[in-house]
């Protein structure tokens, strides 16, 4: 039985209110942590091996360490932007986490802000999360009244304002520099890097953009120590992770598992397995942007960064989409290409044009009106994307196309005319 790091208060009635959250341990260790040297906080987070849970998997402590100290940033302020733009198809963990445990996310934000020397943080929610913004604003108001947010947090002398912001419908605002542009009041078009946000981010100031789930793990790590966190997971993938399971399973949902858990355990023991008489056909393991796996590959996989890399895919956001033998994989790819064509921000030509063409061709193939040549064109378009765009959206749009065609070629060839 695993100690839940992230889901301890799921199902606790009223855990979104301050009183119940406090009774169940939220903010209990905050006073001690705020008294620590900020460098010691970063050292502990680095030692835990925590990696960003939004999709990129970047080491969190290292990211915080990139923010220049005051003497090297001309005393510019540091901004912390909590990425609650959850938009990756197949991913719904941050929504559940924010709904059930908003105070733990606020606590994680306070700890990160203290470590970074940040006095003003924003929680950026996707536009469609209006119902979550109301929940979070209520939690923030309670926290402010209890002197957990605002001036002199818990009498520590540390000031930290936290407010929510809401996007307005744009997948690309989940990309960190797109999110920064949106926070500045502009179109969410990603920026060329370098400079990285840790040096030049929002309003030209050093900025850290961090996923909700990542920050929610931080208070537990500080309270129990990096070694306790590393007791879960593998050496290269320490800790636990939330997996969002959707598609053809009997119990879809959000499940917290130690990294390194075999995929069949997630599928059978947590997600309830497939429907009666069904067999597994394919699994998208980390959100719609990562390469799809065959049934055999998935059933032999463990859910961690290194095993996903071995299989040529990514752990991503942990959004697991399960497709059984009834799934029309050609239609599934057409659906995803339409998503990326809809969401491309349009500033890079290979992405703007390529996503549109891929969507039109994939739709034609799915409708049975495609040709063998269409499959070659699809692959050409997808190959022209990775590495040729400002942000990783180009890769995200191309990888489903390339992996579906590589792993399930016969399904596509059976659908086209010669």
């Amino acid at each position, binding site marked *: 039985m695993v100690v839940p790091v992230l*889901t301890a208060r*799921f*199902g606790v009635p009223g855990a979104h209110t301050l009183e119940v959250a406090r009774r169940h341990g939220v903010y209990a260790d905050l006073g001690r942590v705020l008294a620590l040297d900020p460098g010691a906080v970063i050292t502990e987070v680095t030692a835990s091996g925590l990696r960003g849970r939004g999709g990129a998997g970047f080491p969190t402590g290292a990211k915080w360490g990139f923010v220049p100290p005051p003497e090297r940033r001309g005393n510019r302020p540091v901004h912390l932007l909590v990425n609650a733009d*959850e*938009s*990756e*198809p*197949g*991913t*719904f963990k*941050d*929504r*559940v986490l924010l*709904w*059930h445990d908003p105070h733990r996310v606020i606590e994680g934000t306070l700890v990160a802000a203290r470590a970074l020397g940040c006095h003003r943080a924003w929680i950026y929610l*996707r*536009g*469609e*999360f*209006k*119902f979550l913004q109301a929940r979070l604003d209520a939690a923030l108001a309670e926290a402010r009244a209890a002197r957990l947010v605002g001036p002199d947090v818990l009498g520590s002398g540390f000031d930290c304002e936290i407010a929510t912001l*809401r*996007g*307005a*419908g*744009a*997948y690309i605002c989940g990309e960190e520099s797109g999110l920064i542009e*949106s*926070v*500045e*009041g*502009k*179109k*969410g078009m990603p920026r060329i890097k370098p400079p990285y946000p840790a040096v030049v981010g*929002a*309003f030209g100031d050093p900025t850290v953009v961090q996923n909700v789930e990542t920050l929610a793990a931080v208070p537990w790590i500080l309270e129990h120590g990096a070694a306790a966190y590393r007791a879960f997971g593998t050496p290269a993938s320490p800790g636990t992770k939330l997996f*969002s*399971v*959707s*598609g*053809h399973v*009997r*119990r*879809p*949902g*959000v499940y917290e598992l130690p990294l390194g858990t075999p995929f069949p355990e997630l599928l059978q023991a947590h997600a*309830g397995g497939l*429907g009666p008489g069904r067999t597994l056909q394919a699994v998208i393991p980390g959100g*719609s942007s990562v390469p799809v796996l065959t049934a055999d590959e998935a059933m032999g996989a463990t859910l961690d960064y290194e095993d996903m890399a071995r299989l040529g895919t990514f752990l991503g956001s942990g*959004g697991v*989409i399960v*497709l059984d033998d009834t*799934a029309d994989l050609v239609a*599934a790819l057409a*659906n*995803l290409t339409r*998503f990326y064509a*809809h*969401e491309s*921000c349009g500033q890079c030509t290979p992405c703007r044009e390529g996503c549109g063409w891929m969507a039109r061709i994939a739709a034609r193939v799915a409708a049975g009106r495609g040709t063998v040549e269409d499959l070659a064109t699809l692959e050409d378009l997808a190959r022209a994307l990775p590495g040729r765009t400002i942000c990783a959206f180009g890769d995200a749009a191309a990888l489903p196309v390339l992996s579906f065609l590589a792993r399930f070629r016969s399904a596509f060839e059976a659908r086209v005319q010669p």
Partner: protein
Amino acid sequence: MSAWPDDLAPEAASILASAPTPCAATLPLLWLVQDQRGWIPDEALGWVVAATGQTLAQLEAVLSFYTMFRRAPAGRWVLEVCRTLSCELAGAPRLLDHLQARLGVGIGETTPDGAFTLLAVECLAACGSGPVLHVNGVPYERVTPERADDILTALCEGRLPERPEADAWSYPS
């Protein structure tokens, strides 16, 4: 022409006071207008331009970049059906067909009485409990055609139905 109307002015001033730069107030100000007016009328562009320092061209670009800002009035109830992969697997096409037939409108259209606008949208981050339907931003999950009928009945009575699924994170079939 660029002065905020009396009913919005206090909240607009408060948004501007807490924004790190005037330009950063753009999205919150646009949300203020849309939440209060139901859409963003042309006259509001003048208010936001004057407040934020954006040019009209920049503001028009922002408005067209984000899918949720409306430049024309919508129905009293805006129905958004997610159609991305997990919801498609869970039956979103059937839900969309059903709503079109029940309401007698196509996707993107508003019923003649102004009661309902039907939209098909991309992933709403509730992939485990599809098909997902947002009603004026309130999420309803696992919406079968039968449940959609119940929801429509409640909306016709002027109320949003209960959401017994709100606290779930696992969805046994």
